[in-house]
């Protein structure tokens, strides 16, 4: 951690659809404190220099996923990224690959649709009431620590969308449902309690999903939570292919 205060120059993208045609850049001088994260500097601007700056944040402990921004061109979780990693001048932009609603706020409704399209919930062949023989006396399914660790990593995604900003395929293929959504679908596919893999693999074989990924691996590089979406996507490819091959051998999906 560096000692003492220093003043940095913050270049922030501004865009107000009521008045601006295109985004522009504004510069601010921010006196910083040791230990500050990029988010603290942005908040300083909002509190003291320009209250009209809009950005999203809440938990400031790297778990709510709302404070993703481009910092010097790289997608970063700003509450987790220390100012010490940068010099005296930092450029903060809204997450790349998303339409900009205002300033640093991006449109994520498209993502929410994609998120839902992978059916991110436990699918069982039978309703809970008829599934009692599979539940123990506490009403829970049995799952061993190994079965848990098969999917645990993929359940750590905070939906911060940094991976979407980094992925070259997201940028060019509007239909691509993207790393986090696929990782989520794959998380359920690999959950020992789930029986819906066939349904999700159906989705995965549709347009713009797993096979659109060209394994840039950028998603995993930028993911702040080590979800490793790239491996999820590629495991999902394998799963979808195996499922497809089974379907060829046993007509009507041998899931």
């Amino acid at each position, binding site marked *: 951690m560096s000692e003492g205060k220093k003043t940095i120059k913050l270049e922030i993208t501004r*865009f107000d*659809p009521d008045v*601006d045609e*295109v*985004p522009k850049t504004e510069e601010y001088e921010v006196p910083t404190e040791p230990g500050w994260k990029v988010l603290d500097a942005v908040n300083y601007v909002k509190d003291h220099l320009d209250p009209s700056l809009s950005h999203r944040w809440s938990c400031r402990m790297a778990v709510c996923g709302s404070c993703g921004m*481009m910092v010097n*061109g*790289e997608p970063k979780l700003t509450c987790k990224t220390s100012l010490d990693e940068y010099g005296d001048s930092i450029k903060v*932009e*809204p997450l*790349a*690959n*998303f*339409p*900009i*609603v205002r300033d640093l706020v*991006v*449109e*994520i*409704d*498209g*993502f929410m*649709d994609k998120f839902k399209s992978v059916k991110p919930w436990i699918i069982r062949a039978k309703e809970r009431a008829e599934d009692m023989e599979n539940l123990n006396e506490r009403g829970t399914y049995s799952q061993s620590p*190994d*079965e848990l*660790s*098969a*999917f645990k990593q993929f359940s750590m995604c905070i939906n911060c969308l940094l991976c*979407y900003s980094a992925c*070259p395929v*997201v*940028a*060019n*293929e*509007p239909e*691509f449902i*993207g790393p986090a959504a696929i990782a989520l679908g794959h998380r359920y*596919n*690999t*959950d*020992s309690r789930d029986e819906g*893999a066939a349904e999700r693999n159906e989705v995965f074989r549709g347009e713009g999903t797993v096979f659109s990924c*060209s*394994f*840039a*691996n*950028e998603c995993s*590089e930028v993911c702040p939570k080590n979800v*490793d979406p*790239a*491996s999820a996507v*590629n*495991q999902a490819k*394998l*799963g979808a292919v*195996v499922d497809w091959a089974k379907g060829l051998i046993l007509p009507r999906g041998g899931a």
Partner: protein
Amino acid sequence: MAGAAHPEAMAPRKKGPTRTAPPMMPSSWWSAPRIRIYLLFGATGLVYLLAGFLILRLAWALGSNPMAWQSAFDGLSNPLYVIFHLILLVSVLGVGIRAFVRMMPKMQPRGGPLPVLPPAVVRGAICGLWAGITLFMVLVLSGAIF
């Protein structure tokens, strides 16, 4: 491609209630070091494609007659071919390192009947196989065995 990303990328299915600025990509997205490696990785596709056809030509010659084979085979010492093969070697090694060291160990199917092994083990196994096959090919082709 520089500038704006695909304008429809990540836009909501239904039109948003407010005007938005189109998505931005850092104008030099392809020049970031990591991305450059990724693009090079993709570019090896061209090398592989050419290699495939080159070997097809050799095989065709081998099936035609000894003369055809000999001239095709001798042609390989043309410096242009040697340069191409150097590029091919670099590509193959690059692809191998990226695929076998970085990618495939992470791709083990999960949730199925197979156990999930530590990536290091898988990496070792795949690289071992790679080395083994290479050694075998070298020995066979250079006439050391068979």
